């Protein structure tokens, strides 16, 4: 007799697991960037519309499928239709790629966390050069935070071709990150269910603390005003809508199979419609909340830099014209400048090229996303706060919680189909399966700790999941609505939960959401084709800034392989089932 399927101890654990999975680093480092790029407050309009039209219906679909089929992604889709086993496999492949590179971010968070216990913070001062007369050259050209990220953490090589050796420090942190993930998923839902209480709630505590701190920082209001001033003309920009749709899609983590895995451990009578609404609203609110925090920090940083710039100009003028120390202040700078220009024209024209035009606007406009935001911009703001060690520890601890929470979902997506499969689970206990998956991922993940590792990380981040997920979710929606049958699914849900299916969900599943996904898919494909060759940003140590380079052919081949290996699973799965059935039919025919 089969062992009963492990269940979540309470429905709350399920909700926390979903929140912990969906609320991840993207809420913190992608949404504020999009908000800034596409019109500040007015970006919320396409965002909320897309949430209602695309996010919630697709989330409900995945949770409902998982709860109904009570299996991981491979088994669930095979039950819906045997030709769809490829969809499940594609989900597992994409999850596998994601978990490979995602845990490297946790390794970096660990690295920064461990380095936060020093005074002064290592990224706040430049190291000295050889003969101790000045600072290291690369650090002078860039900034100390950029130097610490590119040189001390990544030890990045100038291009993707020069791989370099595995850096032992990030490698150690990566091993620790995988050990921690293993510890959390060791016992399946029993251990995961307890861990998600922390990974779901602690980031909110830290965000609250940061909100209070951020709003009281000098210059925070500049950032907030800049962000929330709506620029209504951006609503007409199609890119704003496309990015809103994409952000909702990826932020909820659809298509990886994690949501199906989580929902499969639910009681069949669980009200997943209510949970869908709760999870998606909490996810979006967290994005907005995190961007308030981010923008107050931006405002602080921009104001700080603006004032440093002004002080540098004041010092330059004071020194060149031997004015009395303290005479020039921010308030009289302009009039004194015009006075000096008229009184000492020749000398002023000499000094003039060095006088930088300090502008608060241009400081605020530097929009950053991704690892650059988390590890460079935020650390730069933190080093200027008082008691910076405390803020640094809190911040990286929060990043770690967010990252581990998402990793739990990713590994669940891989492990649930494996433990469901009778073949594998009869040979190995689930601790061994989890251990093996973590070991393999860790070993491959060491690639990202090499000197060129960050370039490979960017490849995986940009290409491993994007196109494949759109295709997977499209096939999922079409399959449930038209292959399995919307009426059949509706009656299944009614029998399972006792509630009737609202017409809204039916309309979205049947028409609107698939159309949206198709248009997103078409847009991305055409974007890839139009831009022609793909490029990446490489760090140039001699200049101290990023430069754009072309990918070498083998990197392009690997990108193609990444996308193909997951998308091809769908047709190959269907083909495989078709051939097997055909052979079986042929066998029975020949026997008869």
């Amino acid at each position, binding site marked *: 007799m089969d062992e009963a399927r492990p269940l979540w101890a309470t429905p709350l654990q399920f909700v926390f697991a979903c929140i912990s999975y969906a609320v991840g680093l993207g809420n913190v480092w992608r949404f504020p960037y999009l908000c800034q790029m596409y019109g500040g407050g007015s970006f919320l309009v396409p965002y909320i519309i897309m949430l209602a039209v695309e996010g919630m219906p697709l989330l409900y679909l995945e949770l409902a499928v998982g709860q109904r089929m009570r299996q991981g992604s491979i088994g669930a889709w095979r039950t819906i239709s045997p030709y769809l086993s490829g969809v499940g496999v594609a989900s597992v492949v994409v999850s596998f790629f994601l978990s490979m590179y995602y845990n490297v971010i946790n390794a970096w968070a660990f690295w920064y966390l*461990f*380095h936060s216990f020093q005074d002064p913070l290592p990224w706040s001062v430049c190291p000295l050069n050889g003969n*101790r007369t000045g*600072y290291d050259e690369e650090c002078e050209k860039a900034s100390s935070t950029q130097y610490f990220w590119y040189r001390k953490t990544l030890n990045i090589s100038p291009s993707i071709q020069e791989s370099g050796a595995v850096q032992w420090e990030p490698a150690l942190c990566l091993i*620790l990150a995988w*050990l921690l993930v293993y510890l959390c998923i060791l016992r399946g839902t029993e251990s995961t269910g307890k861990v998600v209480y922390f990974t779901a709630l602690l980031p909110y505590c830290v965000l609250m603390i940061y909100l209070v701190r951020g709003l009281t920082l000098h210059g925070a209001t500049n950032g907030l005003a800049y962000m929330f001033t709506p620029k209504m003309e951006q609503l007409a920009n199609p890119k704003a809508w496309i990015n809103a749709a994409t952000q909702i899609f990826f932020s909820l983590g659809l298509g990886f199979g994690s949501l199906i895995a989580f929902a499969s451990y639910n009681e069949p009578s669980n009200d997943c419609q209510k949970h869908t609404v709760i999870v998606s609203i909490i996810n979006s609110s967290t994005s907005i909340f995190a961007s308030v925090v981010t923008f107050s920090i931006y405002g602080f940083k921009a104001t700080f830099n603006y004032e440093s710039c002004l002080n540098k100009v004041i010092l330059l003028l004071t020194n060149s014209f031997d004015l*009395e*120390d*303290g005479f020039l202040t921010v308030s009289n700078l302009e009039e004194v400048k015009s006075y000096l220009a008229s009184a000492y024209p020749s000398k002023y024209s000499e000094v003039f090229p060095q006088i930088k035009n300090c502008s608060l606007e241009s400081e605020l406009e530097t929009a950053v996303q991704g690892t650059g935001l988390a590890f460079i911009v935020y650390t730069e703001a933190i080093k200027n706060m008082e008691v910076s060690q405390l803020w640094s520890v809190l911040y990286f601890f929060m990043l770690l919680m967010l990252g581990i929470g998402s990793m739990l979902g990713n590994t669940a997506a891989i492990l649930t189909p494996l433990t469901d499969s009778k073949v594998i689970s009869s040979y190995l206990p689930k*601790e061994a399966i989890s251990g093996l998956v973590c070991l393999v991922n860790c070993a491959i993940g060491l690639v990202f700790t090499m000197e060129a590792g960050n370039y490979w990380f960017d490849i995986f981040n940009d290409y491993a999941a994007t196109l494949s997920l759109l295709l997977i979710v499209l096939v999922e929606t079409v399959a449930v609505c038209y292959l399995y049958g919307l009426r059949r699914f509706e009656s299944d849900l009614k029998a399972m939960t006792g509630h009737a299916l609202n017409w809204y969900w039916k309309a979205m599943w049947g028409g609107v959401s698939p159309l949206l996904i198709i248009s997103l898919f078409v847009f991305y494909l055409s974007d890839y084709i139009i831009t022609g060759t793909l490029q990446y940003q490489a760090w140039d140590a001699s200049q101290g800034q990023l430069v754009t380079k072309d990918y070498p052919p083998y990197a392009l081949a690997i990108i193609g392989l990444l996308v193909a290996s997951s998308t091809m699973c769908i047709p190959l799965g269907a083909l495989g089932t078709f051939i097997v059935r055909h052979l079986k039919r042929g066998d029975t025919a020949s026997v008869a």
Partner: protein
Amino acid sequence: MLWLLFFLVTAIHAELCQPDAENAFKVRLSLRTALGDKAYAWDTNEEYLFKAMVAFSMRRVPNREATEISHVLLCNVTQRVSFWFVVTDPSRNHTLPAVEVQSAIRMNRNRINNAFFLNDQTLEFLRIPSTLAPPTDPSVPIWIIIFGVVFCIVIVATMLLILSGIRQRRRSASLEFLQISGTRESLTSLGASCLTSCLHGAPTSNL
């Protein structure tokens, strides 16, 4: 005659100490930046102290122990506060080479700064680079210590969980075995009692 000599001496002095003269260094002080409200005024007494500090630094150089305060010349004091200075040799005709003055000032920079309550950034000697303080490098980097602690905790917790899982599985396996063997026992005892009761013909109320 005396007046002529006086003018000659001051003329020579003036020539020796001039902005951009050979072996002359410019000094720049930022009193208000460093001390705020407690900034003192820069007057001739402060200049005397400065000359004394430079002379002190030069006296610590071998072969220059005879340097006097009067050998240090200051000129072009501005509002900034900034001025130029040179150090002359005992004959007062030539200035000491810039290299010597530079190395002397570098070695005693800390004492000079402290005499004026300033630091390397607020008391600047242009063209004399300051030696930056080396960062304190602990023998074992701090991050490794914290890493080690967290690593050990995670490993211990993982081991505990795995071991307790194995023990739980063994206990549930032996419990199942006991249950099965217990059922068999009760079945056999039930069968025996049935047999005896049937043979004796007594009602078996517990069936």
